[in-house]
């Protein structure tokens, strides 16, 4: 597959600070690259360079076959950018905002208006279309901003932290929209601080810190770097802990970790759901009440912690919210949530 976005050795310096320090990246056509990193890792700088808003101090980048430094005009015809801060005009209505963008893309008056209405409909903003954006909620502004990036149906999209600061509901809505875009064939570069977001939306994840790549791969590959699956159980009484430990020890592929206080036992395993079933059968045979159980694969939080030696701290608060929304995902079920609560 052709790489629609490709950057080699990007460097950007702000005085002594190297915001980007030799970053490489490639996004094949029709795929999503999630660029993951904490605040100040260089994500926005990379997007700004690729979207021709900023000149790199070193390295080169191509978007849709055009050089971002030498042919910025050509690049702009191919891209849509939706930034971290919703770049919409508060005093214009939603419709006027999109119509303006359409006209600036060089669309005719009629086509531009049709397209604006179409997008407002699709982003469930039709009811608010003729109200000034000032009256919109944060989630509505973001959707309008994203709609702005899609006016000319550009084949390449840059979404810079599209859900930062959104409430869980708006975030899930935004995810649905993004998933649809990708289905429709867009090539997308998405930056995020949310590990779950990259996990859910990206085909390929680039973890960066201090302007450099620190890991690269699919969500599964990254998780494999950190370690395999674990079974986690929480038993009903203190007295059950020792028995449960001995049961787990037989099935485990390593040491069983016990937290006496929360009566939680964690054991590395091989064999996934089968081992989980067997664990439960044996615990049942011993007549042990199990309050909670899960097969846990390492999350990207674990990945980040292992790779950088510091957690993605910006994460904690918002993550607690999204986890509750993300129940559909088995691998991040109850224990993760329990951890959140017990950690406080």
């Amino acid at each position, binding site marked *: 597959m052709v790489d629609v976005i490709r950057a080699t050795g990007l460097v950007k310096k702000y005085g002594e600070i190297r915001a980007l320090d030799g970053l490489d990246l490639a996004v094949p056509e029709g795929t999503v690259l999630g660029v993951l990193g904490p605040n100040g890792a260089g994500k926005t700088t990379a997007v700004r360079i690729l979207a*021709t*808003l900023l000149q790199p101090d070193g390295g080169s980048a191509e978007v849709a076959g055009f050089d971002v430094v030498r042919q910025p005009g050509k690049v702009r015809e191919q891209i*849509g*950018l939706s*930034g971290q801060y919703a*770049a*919409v005009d508060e005093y*214009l209505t939603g419709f006027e905002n999109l119509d303006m963008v359409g006209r600036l893309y060089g669309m005719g008056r009629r086509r531009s208006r049709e397209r604006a209405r179409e997008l407002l409909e699709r982003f469930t903003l039709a009811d608010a279309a003729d109200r*000034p954006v000032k009256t919109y909620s944060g989630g509505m502004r973001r959707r309008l901003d994203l709609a*702005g990036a899609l006016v000319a149906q550009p084949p390449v999209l840059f979404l810079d932290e599209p859900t930062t600061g959104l409430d869980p509901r708006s975030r899930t809505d935004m995810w649905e929209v993004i998933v649809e875009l990708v289905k429709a064939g867009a090539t997308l570069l998405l930056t995020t601080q949310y590990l779950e977001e990259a996990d859910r939306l990206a085909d390929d994840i680039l973890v960066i810190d201090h302007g450099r790549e620190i890991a690269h791969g699919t969500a599964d590959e990254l998780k494999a770097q950190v370690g395999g699956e674990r079974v986690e159980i929480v038993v009903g009484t203190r007295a059950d802990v020792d028995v449960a430990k001995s049961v787990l020890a037989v099935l485990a592929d390593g040491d069983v970790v016990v937290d006496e206080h929360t009566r939680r036992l964690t054991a590395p395993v091989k064999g996934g759901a089968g081992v989980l079933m067997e664990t439960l059968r044996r615990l049942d045979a011993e007549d042990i009440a199990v309050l909670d159980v899960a097969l846990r694969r390492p999350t990207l939080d674990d990945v980040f912690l292992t790779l950088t030696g510091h957690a993605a701290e910006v994460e904690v608060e918002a993550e607690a919210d999204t986890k509750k929304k993300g129940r559909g995902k088995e691998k991040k079920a109850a224990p993760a949530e329990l951890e959140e609560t017990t950690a406080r």
Partner: protein
Amino acid sequence: MSVMTLQKTLGDGAVLAKRNLIKIKRVPDLLVFSTMSPIMFILLFAYVFGSAINVPGIGYREFLIPGIFAQTVIFGATITGAGLADDIQKGIIDRFRSLPMSRSAVLVGRTTSDVLNNVLVIVIMSLTGLAVGWRIRSSFLEAAGGFLLLLLFAYAISWIMAWVGLIVPSPEVVNNASFMIIFPLTFVANTFVPTNNFPSGLRTIANWNPVSSVTQAARQLFGNTSDKAPAPKDWSLQHPVIYTLIWVVLLLAVFIPLSVRQYKRSASR
């Protein structure tokens, strides 16, 4: 610049000028503020200072109004800077810069809408002026030329303000800075009083101040002059229209390229 790019620039500029004008409609405070202060100035100067200032051969109010016009359109031009600084702060400039649109359209649109805003302000001031006794005593063409020159001068100032708006950290800075600069600029001039009695150094500065020449030109074109109060002998005030036009050309030649270059570089903050 090819015809195609020029066409694109003007087309995109018109789209953005329309956007800025919608804002004036939605936030009438802006317009109220920019028209109330000149009305207040007219009334204060006409009735408070007017009772003490005597210009030979002509009523003070007639002398005053063209000066207030000049001061007001210059202040009106500062909206350009504040508007651009605001767009940068809010991040919408990023949207524009990522679009395949003309590189100078944001500035063309901004300066154009600010001239249109100034037209409205001049209409309101003229009506106020007429109400307090100001009269146009020249031909229609001359008067139209007077208004046009005032707007042209303000347009040139707009381009200075565009550059300022792109380099300052926030819209508030534009407002404060322009206040600090434009007040002295419009007072060390013949706008409110004749310069004859200024201390000599200050008088030279005042007489060569383009605000004086545009005011003098407006007075002549509106017929608000008197032989009993001849213009100072300086070339700038003997040929105020030409001198003003030289300034206009000079300012545009310097600040259009400077602003466009700064726009390409400016990043959102």
